[in-house]
């Protein structure tokens, strides 16, 4: 009786667990294979540059707007919270730290995940279900080298550039609110910003960006590559790609922060 109960209990617990572990193993194998093919020629430079353009250049407006308003709202919130203190330097410093360390990398990555991760999965997924990936193989072209590697390289390299631009725009957002809304002295604000400028804050943000770029491309490619079952399958894969890359971005954000700033 009790044994029966335990057995049923374990079975209901075990089935999803086994399924989860299987997909984790599947993902790990995919990641290892992808990284291997990133370093083994032939390299498709033209496709890499096309991805740079897609992931980087065309994401600029979205990233610019996101970080601009993030910087602006931080300046406003900090002012309402810290108005009793020496407002100018506090606000400049809070804007600088929060934008470069957290807001620019995380918000930009989440926007790019929605914009690019979804498109990547939809494209590769459609190629999968219409047998275009099989066709690549029969034409002596390795899909990992042709499809996955250019996207991984582009994601890894272009996100730090995007985030660096985002840093500047975000700080500028704080400056606009500080000067035009809160009436600070521009020279003092800029001095305060540069006084607090720390290399480690910027660098940690850019390292985060590189990791996030890799995650976005990896999830986009993985879910696209493994999609099956026509239009609905590709739709599900697209959702999974965006959700999983967003969650991974937030998890890795914590881990990298801990690596840099906890002693």
């Amino acid at each position: 009786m009790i044994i029966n109960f335990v057995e049923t209990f374990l079975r209901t617990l075990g089935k999803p667990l086994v399924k989860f572990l299987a997909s984790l193993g599947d993902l790990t194998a995919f990641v290892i294979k992808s990284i291997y093919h990133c370093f083994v020629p032939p390299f498709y430079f033209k496709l890499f540059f096309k991805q740079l353009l897609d992931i980087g250049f065309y994401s600029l407006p979205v990233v610019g707007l996101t970080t601009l308003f993030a910087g602006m709202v931080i300046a406003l919130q900090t002012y309402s919270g810290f108005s009793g203190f020496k407002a100018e330097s506090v606000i400049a410093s809070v804007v600088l730290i929060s934008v470069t360390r957290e807001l620019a990398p995380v918000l930009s990555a989440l926007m790019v995940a929605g914009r690019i991760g979804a498109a990547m999965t939809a494209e590769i997924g459609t190629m999968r279900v219409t047998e275009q990936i099989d066709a690549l193989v029969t034409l002596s072209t390795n899909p990992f080298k042709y499809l996955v590697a250019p996207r991984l390289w582009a994601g890894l390299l272009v996100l730090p550039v995007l985030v660096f631009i985002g840093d500047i725009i975000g700080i500028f957002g704080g400056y606009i609110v500080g000067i035009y809304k809160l009436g600070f002295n521009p020279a003092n604000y800029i001095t305060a910003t540069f006084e607090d400028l720390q290399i480690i804050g910027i660098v940690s943000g850019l390292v985060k960006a590189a990791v996030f770029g890799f995650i976005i491309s990896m999830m986009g490619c993985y879910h696209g590559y493994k999609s099956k079952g026509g239009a609905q399958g590709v739709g599900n894969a697209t959702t999974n790609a965006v959700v999983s890359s967003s969650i991974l971005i937030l998890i890795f954000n914590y881990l990298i922060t801990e690596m840099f700033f906890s002693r």
Partner: protein
Amino acid sequence: MSNDIKISIRNLHKSFGKKNVLNGVDLDLYKGESLVVIGGSGTGKSVLIKCIQGLLTPDSGSIKIDGVEVVKENSDIIESMHSKMGMLFQGGALFDSLTVWENVAFDLIQNRKISKKEAKIVAIKVLRQVGLGADIADLYPSELSGGMQKRVGLARAVITRPEIIFFDEPTTGLDPIMADVINDLIIESAKDLGATTLTITHDMTSARKIADKIAMLYQGKIIWTGSVKELEKTDNPYVRQFIQGSSKGPIAVEK
């Protein structure tokens, strides 16, 4: 005689989960021969040719191409095999991000280091062989009709002059006249290249027209092989039911 065997398959098994799709397939393909594998939908015809091309890994069994074992070998061997194989996919599987001529010349440009200009000239020549004009070379696949897409797919499959060509349901989804055009093109290009071909289809008109030899796949096994003449005379009840297209007989229709 064994020298003339191009592809030799022995005791091939492949299952997906609990479903056994291939259940011990034995099949020989002789050099220059046109073999057509017939069988109902979902009997594993596509799985069979995907296993031969290394797109799927069989669970067990042996596939030898020109005497070289390709199952469970390192991927280099299978990759080197692809240069002597061509394939026409059921839906065409043209790359929709590339133009028609870039599709046709894909292998030339990517793997054979031929300049784009030269590759385009060759591509247009091959397109002409399959009855398409130079005017469609710069269109995208989505702008073509189904029959044209199939012909572009055929051009892409034969441009590297492969020794073995696979045809996956080449006439499915086409009207009878276009189907016959494709059949003629398949026969013509195979003859022109002296290629060995393996076609899977359930279109009996097409099978009768292009086959030197026909094999029937049922429940994961080859249950009958013979020439087209033998096909008409056979008393194998499964084959008879299939070629007559009858719902009554030993083949149970899946519910």
